[in-house]
């Protein structure tokens, strides 16, 4: 197996505070890595750093074996979905196609490809509607379609379901799982919901205080927490 993304000796500071310190983290191609941890653990900081939206003070991030890509080139090989869908004031179709537009794909092509992914995410019937008039669940489906249409080598998701009610969340989680299995998109999925992590992740990383305390198959992590802090986090969060 080749690592799609490999982080070494990473250090990120925000407002002069060290908020992320990772010695080594590798994500293999096709893997879905679920990152869990309490509020303030540094999950979103890791997410932004991996998207090259936040500078790191030290360390390397290799993508496909190289760390010499320009930021724009790098970002055009990934896609991200945040907790808020952050759709633009335009039609659903235009929203889904926006990343393709940034890549200079002609309108006819991008519209067709956006249409396909809206269909796949179950929101094709909303394609011509204004993105301002969608429910939270529908918006997040459009946000996912907008990411998948780019056929990213790495998909980054930061708590994409947190703002949704639990039935909506459960349905969306299943749909996402199916799409990920079908496309084998390498994914980093950040969540503070352990059940979601277990459901979606092929591996799981537990982050506490800016460090990865444990990484392994979800079942393995639950069965054998690496240290007392992990055990406590898993225990209190599940209990």
């Amino acid at each position: 197996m080749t690592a799609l993304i490999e982080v070494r000796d990473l250090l990120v500071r925000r407002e002069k505070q060290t908020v992320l310190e990772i010695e080594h983290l590798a994500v293999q191609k096709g893997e879905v890595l679920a990152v869990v941890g309490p509020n303030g653990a540094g999950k979103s900081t890791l997410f932004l750093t991996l998207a090259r939206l936040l500078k790191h003070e030290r360390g390397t991030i290799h993508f496909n074996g190289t760390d010499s890509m320009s930021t724009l080139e790098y970002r055009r090989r990934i896609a991200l979905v945040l907790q808020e869908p952050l759709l633009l004031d335009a039609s659903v179709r235009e929203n889904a196609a926006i990343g393709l537009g940034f890549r200079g794909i002609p309108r006819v092509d991008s519209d067709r490809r956006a249409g396909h992914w809206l269909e796949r995410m179950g929101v094709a019937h909303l394609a011509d509607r204004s993105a301002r008039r969608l429910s939270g669940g529908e918006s997040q489906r459009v946000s996912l379609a907008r990411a998948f249409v780019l056929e990213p080598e790495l998909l980054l998701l930061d708590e994409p379901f947190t703002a949704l009610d639990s039935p909506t969340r459960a349905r969306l989680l299943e749909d996402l799982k199916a799409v990920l299995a079908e496309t084998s998109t390498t994914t980093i999925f950040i969540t503070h919901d352990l059940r979601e992590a277990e459901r979606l992740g092929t591996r799981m990383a537990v982050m506490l205080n800016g460090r990865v305390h444990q990484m392994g198959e979800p079942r393995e992590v639950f069965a054998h927490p690496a240290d007392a802090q992990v055990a406590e986090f898993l225990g209190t969060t599940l209990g």
Partner: protein
Amino acid sequence: MADLFPITLLSLQVSILATLISLLIGLPLGTILALGKFPGRSFLLSIVNTGMALPPVVVGLFVAMMLWRSGPLGDLRLIYTPAAIIIAQTIISAPVVTGLTAAALQQLNPRLRLQLYGLGASRAQMVLSLWREARLPLLAALMAGFGSVISEVGASMMVGGNIRGQTRVLTTAIVLETSKGEFERAIALSAFLLTITFLVNWALTVIQQRGRS
């Protein structure tokens, strides 16, 4: 009444041109002030916000001193020309457009920028997307810029001189006619002023509200 049309036309030409130049200055400058991170940013922003309330007569005084025959830019021979009015009006409306552009962009969710970058936008594509997203308040900024100059009289009088057939615009003509007791002419000019102000804003509002229900 025959000179009503040339006066109205000059008013429109001068104020529209000044507004467009303000847009060329204010849109990029307001964007940098809203999105940039550099020392002195909030200080600059407060200068711009103060500039939004610049009294036209003070601008008139400053531009008149600059363009006066013996002034630093006197050799350009611009005092008492339409160009002088355009310069003064641009100084009046540019801070309005700049300040309101910055406010319009700062109202957007800051995470939207991250999202756009994360979808592969270059910096220019990110800025264009934000402008598009803020198109309503940006057009409002443009309307406010135009409104600040079409209705302005002090600066036009001071640097234009209200010369008949050359630099007489609607507002300076209204002042003159009123001072002569020619109320009918003053009222007619006022009606023209209100009408063109309405028409320009109406056109901008139609653009602004297009596609909204």
